[in-house]
């Protein structure tokens, strides 16, 4: 079924959009098994939309998404959920659901139509809660948790699906810097432990460069740059992608590029900040 060289997830000639607006047209992207690919770009560049199309949360207008070489349009959605977990952007938990009850939903694609959770289901739920450090508040209501705790609970739901492929849409939004790093560190550890393939949409270029081993910069639905972080994070590409003049330095601790933004590159209406 799967050849060893086949990418875990591919977009071939992908076209996707809302209403009459086409966000991306004829996009080609291959995600190799075991890699961490970060999709970055300015607001409205289409990175979230592309991730939603990759994870069949949104239908593709044209082209195909291949999961292990098979078109997702021909796969049952339950079967997709057994191979690919996706955490949508900023999901709202229902009022009064406990952590365990939410994580149990991750077993939905594995369960029979009727009947209680199996021993394997319960084990997967425990496992996911232990890995994410959420087991201690298993019976707390998710809507009473802090943002960082909540994000780990959502991650536990995705892990309970026991997939090799994990897609995360801006998993660090609304989190403070400590919790941002905590969530990304957790994903990095899980990836190492389970050999996961990870695709994330990230806002922060520094985070993307630090955690992902490949970055794809999107601009108006097209791929502007695609490569290892140190190839992609350059002053030239930052200017083209974000319209920002920036200095790119190397993080003395991690050895990955960090961006120091200075001024918007082409904004005549914004007064120049006088630097002393």
């Amino acid at each position, binding site marked *: 079924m799967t050849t060893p060289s086949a990418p875990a997830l591919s977009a071939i000639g992908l076209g996707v959009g809302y209403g009459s607006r086409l966000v991306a047209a004829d996009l080609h992207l291959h995600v190799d098994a075991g890699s961490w690919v970060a999709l970055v770009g300015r607001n409205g560049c289409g990175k979230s939309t592309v991730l939603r199309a990759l*994870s*069949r*949360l949104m239908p593709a207008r044209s082209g195909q998404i291949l999961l292990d070489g098979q078109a997702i349009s021909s796969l*049952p*959605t*339950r*079967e*997709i*959920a*057994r191979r690919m*977990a*996706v*955490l*949508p952007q900023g*999901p*709202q*938990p*229902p*009022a*009064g*659901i*406990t952590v365990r*009850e*939410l994580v149990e*939903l*991750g077993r*939905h*694609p594995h369960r029979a*139509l*009727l009947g209680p959770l199996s021993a394997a289901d319960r084990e997967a739920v425990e496992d996911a809660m232990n890995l994410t450090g959420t087991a*201690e*508040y298993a*019976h*707390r*209501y*998710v*809507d*009473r*948790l*802090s*943002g960082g*705790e*909540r994000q780990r609970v959502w991650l536990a*739901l*995705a892990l309970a*699906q026991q997939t090799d492929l994990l897609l995360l849409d801006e998993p660090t939004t*609304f989190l403070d810097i400590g919790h941002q790093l905590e969530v990304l560190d957790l994903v990095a550890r899980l990836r190492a432990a389970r050999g996961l393939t990870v695709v994330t949409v990230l806002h922060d270029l520094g985070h993307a460069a630090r955690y992902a081993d490949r970055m794809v910069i999107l601009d108006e639905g097209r791929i502007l740059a695609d490569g290892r972080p140190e190839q992609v994070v350059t002053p030239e590409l930052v200017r083209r992608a974000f319209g920002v003049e920036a200095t790119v330095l190397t993080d003395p601790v991690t050895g990955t590029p960090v961006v120091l933004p200075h001024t918007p590159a082409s904004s005549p209406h914004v007064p120049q900040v006088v630097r002393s």
Partner: protein
Amino acid sequence: MTALPQTRGRSGGVPGALPQEVRSNERSDLGSDPPNGSPRGLPSDLPRAAHRLTWWITLAALLLLGLLILHLGMGSAPLTPAEVTAALTGRPIEPWHRDVVIGLRMPRGLIAVTAGAMLGVAGAHLQAVTRNVLADPGLLGVSAGAVLAVVVGASFGLVSVSSGWTPVVATGGALASGALVYWLGWHGGAADATRFVLNGVLVSAIGSALVAVVLTLDGSTFGTVLRWIVGTLHARTWEHWQVLWPWAIVSLVIALGAIRGATVLWSGYDVATAVGAHPTRIRLAVFGSAALLTAGAVCTVGAVGFVGLVAAHLVRPLVGHHPARVIPMAAFAGAALLLGADIVANGLTFAIPGDQIGGRASLPTGAVTALVGGPLLLALILKERR
């Protein structure tokens, strides 16, 4: 009302609220935990009863049986619970007790229990899939569609209240108005819960207006139909029960089968899709089963309002919010509510002195449920606003 949910909806999770900040009245469910909430195993937010659902269902069933015995004792010839029990178990104290209890009063009691359960389940289901604590068959326009269909059918002489075809016609109306609300609410993809209820109220208003028009065209049935629209259990016989029970069994089985789907969709549209469910199919299945449940109930007891809304809110403080617990418990709560409302309606009717039994005006049961449900709805809306 004490039946309000304990959480403040989505706004409950204030960023920065640490799990250690546990309210003092919350107890630990994980036996070995220190009471002050240690890092390992924090206290449960779930109400105590959530872990003992079977026990609570048994208790609810016994409570319901007690209410039913009380209900069967009421009427122009009051009977004590002991007399009712004796008549039910085949050893009536007076021979006529059996005829009164089983022949005359039993259908009314059974209909109240069954229709109440159906409305309770429909309300709890709709609240889960729409993620809206204001959802109710009456508020979403489903009842209004059923009423309109039956009134139109009756004015053309196609159906009567005790005909086996009535629920079919009512389901048609319920589905049509439900579909209209669904289409208005989800037109364009975005699901806005508040707009959704507003659409339901709009469709209900149009439905009521059309009912009034049909009734004006054919004035002969005005009085009967009007009372039935408010919702009444007055003069229900075994004939009505024959129409209701097969319908109730089929629709309740379908609704119970849809609980898993409703739970997944309760977690949100994107999350449901992500875990491999079909949100649109689930919505259609739940709406369909709610239409079946509502139509069956409306045919026999009329458009009794608020039972679905109140039932779900009554059980949440007991068993928490999970649809797998709320929906079965809402069946008992709905049954108890309608039966209780009928006891109150019956009691008030007989408390008012009158010369003769036959010509006595009876208080519609729906008026009693509205007196309970209206203030609850108001309280919920004020709570949402805050």
